[in-house]
C-alpha cells in the first residue's frame, strides 16, 4: 500500500524519508513541487497527484507536507487518514509536531514509523501500543539516557498488541486515579449581510483524559442522550450498548483520547428576551495606506463561553466497574466559535 513517506518543509526541503518497500528515489517529489508551485498556496496543493509511475498523496499540517508515495489502487482516504494519524502520533509523542522537533527526535520518529506500517500496511497505530514499544522522550529520560546510555525502546514486549483491548496498554498504574471529560462544542454559522442566520450548526466533541489503574470499565450516561443522533465513536465504545440504552460503555485507552464527536444540524438559540437582545459589537479598521478592498470582506468571529455546552448536552453520571478504587472524576463544558462567519 504505502510505499514511502517524505516529509517536506515549506521551503521545499525533504528533511525525512522512510521507505517500507524498496526505495523510491526522492526525485519523485519533483512532481509534488510542480503542483505546489502551481497551487500558489499550500492549502491548495491537491491531496492526490498522479505521476507516471506513482501517486503522491499528501496532507499539510504544522507547515509540513507529509507526502506518501503509492503505486497501486488504494482508497485515498485510507492513506490520508493514516497520514493524519502519523501527525497525531507525533504530536502525542513530542507535544508539538514541527520540523525542528522531528529533526531532533529523528531516531524515535523513524522507529515509530517503522512500527506503524509493515510492508506499507498499518500495523500498530494506537498510540497506547506505540508508547509501549517505543517510549516517548521526556527531559528526564533524555538526561538519564545520555548518562547511562540506556534506551528508549521498551524492554518488555508489547503485550498490548495481543490483548482483546488493543487500544489499552496493560499494567497501567497510577497513584492518583482520575478521569476528566471535556465537552467542547463549536458553533459553525454563516450570518448574512442583513444579520439573519443562513446556517448554524453545532460540532461537539468529548475529549477524555483518563488516568486509571488496571482495566477499568466505564459507563458514561447523559441527561439528554437524544440530542446525540449523529455521532462517531472511538473504537473502544460498545456500539450495541449505545444503540440499545444510549449509554457510553467502554474500556478507555490510557491517557488522552477523543471519546466521541457529534454533529447537530440546527442550533436552537433558546429564549431571548426581546427587551434585551444580546448583541455583539465590533469595529473594523483598515490598515493605514492599504487600498480599500473591492468587496466587503467576510468577518470571522472568535469567542468562548466557559462552563456551557450550547446544545444543552449534560453528562448524567460516570460509573466505573472492574476496579475497586474510587477515581476522581471531573467534567468541563465549553462552547466556542467554530467557523463563525459574518458576511458584510
Amino acid at each position, binding site marked *: *500500500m504505502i510505499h514511502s513517506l517524505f516529509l517536506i518543509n515549506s521551503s521545499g526541503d525533504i528533511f525525512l*524519508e522512510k521507505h517500507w518497500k524498496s*526505495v523510491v528515489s526522492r526525485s519523485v517529489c519533483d512532481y509534488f513541487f510542480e503542483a505546489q508551485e502551481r497551487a500558489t498556496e499550500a492549502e491548495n496543493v*491537491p*491531496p492526490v497527484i*498522479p505521476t507516471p509511475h506513482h501517486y503522491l498523496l499528501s*496532507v499539510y*499540517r504544522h507547515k509540513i507536507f507529509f507526502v506518501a508515495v503509492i503505486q*497501486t489502487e488504494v*482508497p*485515498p*482516504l*485510507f492513506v*490520508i*487518514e493514516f497520514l*493524519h494519524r502519523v501527525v497525531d502520533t507525533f504530536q502525542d509523542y513530542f507535544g508539538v509536531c514541527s520540523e525542528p522537533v522531528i*529533526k531532533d*527526535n*529523528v*531516531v524515535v520518529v*523513524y522507529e515509530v514509523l*517503522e512500527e506503524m506500517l509493515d*510492508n506499507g*500496511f498499518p500495523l500498530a*497505530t494506537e498510540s497506547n501500543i506505540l508508547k509501549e514499544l517505543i517510549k516517548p*522522550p521526556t527531559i528526564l529520560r533524555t538526561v538519564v539516557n545520555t548518562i547511562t*546510555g540506556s*534506551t*528508549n*525502546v521498551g524492554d518488555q*514486549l508489547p*503485550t498490548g*498488541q495481543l490483548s*482483546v*483491548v488493543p487500544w489499552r496498554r496493560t499494567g497501567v498504574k497510577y497513584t492518583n486515579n482520575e478521569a476528566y471529560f471535556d465537552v467542547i462544542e463549536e458553533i*459553525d454559522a454563516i450570518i448574512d449581510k442583513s444579520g439573519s442566520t*443562513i*446556517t448554524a450548526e453545532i460540532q461537539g466533541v468529548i475529549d477524555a483524559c483518563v488516568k486509571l489503574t488496571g*482495566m477499568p470499565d466505564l459507563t458514561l*450516561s447523559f441527561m439528554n*442522550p437524544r440530542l446525540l443522533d*449523529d*455521532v*462517531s465513536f*472511538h473504537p473502544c465504545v460498545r456500539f*450495541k*450498548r449505545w*444503540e*440499545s*440504552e*444510549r449509554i457510553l460503555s467502554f*474500556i478507555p485507552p490510557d491517557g488522552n483520547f477523543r471519546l466521541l464527536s457529534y*454533529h447537530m*444540524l440546527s442550533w436552537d438559540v433558546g429564549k431571548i428576551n426581546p427587551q434585551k437582545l444580546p448583541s455583539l459589537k465590533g469595529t473594523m479598521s483598515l490598515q493605514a495606506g492599504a487600498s480599500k478592498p*473591492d468587496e466587503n*470582506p467576510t468577518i*470571522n468571529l472568535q469567542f468562548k463561553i466557559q462552563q456551557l455546552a450550547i446544545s444543552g448536552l449534560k453528562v448524567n*453520571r460516570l460509573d466505573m466497574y*472492574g476496579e475497586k478504587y474510587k477515581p476522581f472524576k471531573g467534567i468541563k463544558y465549553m462552547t466556542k466559535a467554530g*467557523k463563525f462567519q459574518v458576511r458584510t
Partner: protein
Amino acid sequence: MSAAPAYSEDKGGSAGPGEPEYGHDPASGGIFSSDYKRHDDLKEMLDTNKDSLKLEAMKRIVAMIARGKNASDLFPAVVKNVACKNIEVKKLVYVYLVRYAEEQQDLALLSISTFQRGLKDPNQLIRASALRVLSSIRVPIIVPIMMLAIKEAASDMSPYVRKTAAHAIPKLYSLDSDQKDQLIEVIEKLLADKTTLVAGSVVMAFEEVCPERIDLIHKNYRKLCNLLIDVEEWGQVVIISMLTRYARTQFLSPTQNESLLEENAEKAFYGSEEDEAKGAGSEETAAAAAPSRKPYVMDPDHRLLLRNTKPLLQSRSAAVVMAVAQLYFHLAPKAEVGVIAKALVRLLRSHSEVQYVVLQNVATMSIKRRGMFEPYLKSFYIRSTDPTQIKILKLEVLTNLANETNIPTVLREFQTYIRSMDKDFVAATIQAIGRCATNIGRVRDTCLNGLVQLLSNRDELVVAESVVVIKKLLQMQPAQHGEIIKHLAKLTDNIQVPMARASILWLIGEYCEHVPRIAPDVLRKMAKSFTAEEDIVKLQVINLAAKLYLTNSKQTKLLTQYVLSLAKYDQNYDIRDRARFTRQLIVPSEQGGALSRHAKKLFLAPKPAPVLESSFKDRDHFQLGSLSHLLNAKATGYQELPDWPEEAPDPSVRNVEVPEWTKCSNREKRKEKEKPFYSDSEGESGPTESADSDPESESESDSKSSSESGSGESSSESDNEDQDEDEEKGRGSESEQSEEDGKRKTKKKVPERKGEASSSDEGSDSSSSSSESEMTSESEEEQLEPASWSRKTPPSSKSAPATKEISLLDLEDFTPPSVQPVSPPAIVSTSLAADLEGLTLTDSTLVPSLLSPVSGVGRQELLHRVAGEGLAVDYTFSRQPFSGDPHMVSVHIHFSNSSDTPIKGLHVGTPKLPAGISIQEFPEIESLAPGESATAVMGINFCDSTQAANFQLCTQTRQFYVSIQPPVGELMAPVFMSENEFKKEQGLQGGH
C-alpha cells in the same frame, strides 16, 4: 537521542579508547574526507563491546538513512550486530538491514540464520518479529526459506504470528510471483482463521495476490461479516471494499424491480429521508406494474452485509465511513442508501484533505441520488476560509443539488460568492450559474440577466467568464437576445481575455442576422487589430469574416479578403491552413464549385446547443472511494466493480458445514479461544439468520408472502423491519445485555414504570434509571416472559414434551437455512431461549444419550477476563444431579487464567443467599498457572426458584462478586420415559 546531543556525546566518547585518528590527519578538512572519517569512526564504534557505543553509532546511522544519506558502505559492520543482545541496537540493525539488504544481497545472507532461530523462539512476539524482518529482506535467494517460514507461521498457535504471516504474503509475492499458487494455499488457510487480528491482514494479502479468486471468500463470507465490527480500522476498510466486489458477483441487484417505478420511488424518496420512505401507494403500483416479473427477495447474506456494516458509519475513521458509504451506494436498495448522507456530511468537518476526497465522492453520488443530500444543502455552503479547491468542489455539489424548489436559495448563495476576492472561485461560480440555467428552465432568464449585469463588473476575469457562459446560454434561444448580443459586441473594445473575445466573435458571426448593422463594424475593428490577437481569436475572426461574406458580401467582401490575406502569412500554421481552406470554400472559383455552392449550409448550419454537464457524470462506474474514481482514470491494480449478475449464483456455497455432533464443542471452543470483544456473539459460522432466529424468520416469511404479489419494494421494506428486529436480537445475544433488553421490554409492558423516569424521556430513553430498578424489572421479566409463551410450553410439564418447533429454536446458530422456519412471537428473550435449550428433546434424540452429561451446552459467562484481571470464569449446568445432595443442581465452573501470573487460592467466599437457596462450595483450587484452565463442580439448591445465587469468588488477592441465575429448564431433572408413560403422566396432569 536527539541528533545534536548524540553527536556531541560521541565527541565526548571519542576521547575514549581507540579514537586516536581523529586528530591525526589535519589535511582531511574537506567534506568528503570527513564523511569518510565519520564512517570509519562509526565502524569502530560498532566493533566495540560496549552496547552504548553501538547504540550511538546505530542512531547516527539511522539518522543518516532518515535524511536520505547513503550509508550502505557500513553494511558489513552493521550486519555483525544482528544478534546483539541489546534490544534497541537490534531493532536499529533490523531497520538498517531491511533498507540495504537489497543492495548487499550476499552479506545480507549472513543474518538469515539469526532470524531462522528467532522463528523457533518460544515467545510469540520474537517469532513474529523474526518473520517480519526476514520477509522484509528483499533477497530472491531466500524465497524458499521465506515460503517455509510463512507456511509454518500460518499454523502458529499465536494469532499475532499468524497476522505477521499474512503480512509476509504480499512481500514474498512481490519478490517472486511464481510462488502464487503456494501462497494462495496459505491465504486460503488464513482466511479460515476466526480471529479478528488476522482477518484484515489476510484480506489485504488476498487483494494483493489473488483478488480474482472470489471463490475463496464463499466459506468465509459470513464469518467476515460477523467479525467486521471488531477488526481494527484499517482492516475494516480493506474487508469492506473486498466484500463490495464480492457482493456484486454473488447477489442480485436490489434495484432491478425499482427501475420500473423509478419516478414513483423518487418522489417518495424526496419526501422523507427515512428508510421507510416508500408508502403503500408505490407498493401497489409496483404490484400492478410488474406482475410478470419474478419478485425480488434479497439474499439474507446480502442483508447481513448491509446490516453489519451500517454501525461502522459511526466510526471515527473517515476511511471506514467512506468505505461503508460506497458499499451502501453500490449495494443497498435505493430506499436505504440515504443513511450514508448524514455520515458523509459529518466528514466535511474533518481535515481539508478528507473534505476534498469526500466531496469528490459526494459530487458523483449527488448526480445519481440527488434526493439523498438535499436535506443537507446548507452544509455545502461555502465559507470564505475554505481553500479554493474545496470551494470549487462544494460548488459542484451545490449545482448538482439545485432543483426547481431550492434554486432561489442556491442562486442567492451564488450571488454572494460572485463578490468573493478569490477569482478562480468566482469564475467557477459563473460556470455553475450557467449550469443551473441550462438545467432549470424556469430560472434561465434570471440567470442570463444576472450574468449580463456581471458584464459591467470591474474585474475583467469575471466579465470574460460571464461572456463565455452567456454565449452557451444564448445558443439555446438566440432569437430573443439581440440586445444582449449588441451589448456583447460593444465589449470587444475593452475586454482582452482571448476566450471571451473569441466567444463574442463567434456569437456575432453565428447570429449576424440579429445584428446586421453591428457585425460588419466589429469585423472592421478586428481586421485592424488582427495581427495582435491571440490564436483562438484569430480563428474566430476568420470564422466571422466567412459568415459575413456569405450573408452580407456587399459590405464585407473587401474586409474578408484583407483578413484572409493577413491570415495566409500568419506564423501559426493552423491559422494559415484555416485561411486557405476558408478562401477555397467561400470565394467561388472555376474548379471547386461544388463545395462553395454549399458553403452557406456548411457555415451557417443550425448547431445544437452545448450541454453543460458535471464533470462527475458517470464517474460512478469506478468504485466510489477508490483512487481511480478520484482521478477519473484507472489506477494500476484497480479491480473493476462487476455488474450485478442476471441470475444469482448458488447461495449455498456460503453455507458452512458444521457436523451435528461437533456443534457444541465448536461453540465452546470459540468462546474459550477468542471471544469477539464487542460484537454480538452470533455464530460466526452460522448461516445468516434466515432460519436460526425467530423474529428474522418471521419477517422473512412475511416478505416472501408479500412479495408474492410481485413487488420488489415491499420486500425491501419488510427487510427494514427485520433488520430492526435483528438488531434487537443481536443485542440480546450478548448475555449481559439481554437483561437490559428484557428490562426495556418489561417497561413497555408495564407503563406505570415509565412514570418513575423523568417525564421528558420516553420508553427506551429512560436509561438514566438506577441499577436498583434494573434488578426489580429483571425479576419481573422472568415472571412475565414465560407467561406470554405459555401457550406453547406448559411450564407444568416437567418432562417437556418438546415439539419440533422448539428444537429448532434450540439449534440457534447452526440450523441450515433450508429448514422451513416457524413463526413464534417476536419477543422471545434469550433467557427464554436458554430455558428452552434445557427442554430440548426431539424424537431423534430421545435416547439414553440424553442422560449423559451435555457439558458443552449453554456455557455462560460468570466473570469476564477483563473484569477478572485475566481470570475468566464460565459456568455450565451439567444436567446431572449433584452427587452430594439430590436437591442441588450441579454446576460446572470453568476457570481459565489468561493473565501472566498464576492465580492462587481460588475459592468461594461468604455467599449472600436468598432464603431457601444453598450452595455446596467447590474445593479450593490452589493455583492456576498462566494459560491454564481448570474445572470445578459445585452444587446449588435453587429451591425451585429462578432467583440468582450470589456469592464471591475469591483469590488470594482479590474478590469478585458473581451471580448464577438458572434458566427454568436447568432446574428440571431429565427423566427417561416411553411415549405411553408420558401420555399417562400428561393425563394425570390434566386431571389436576
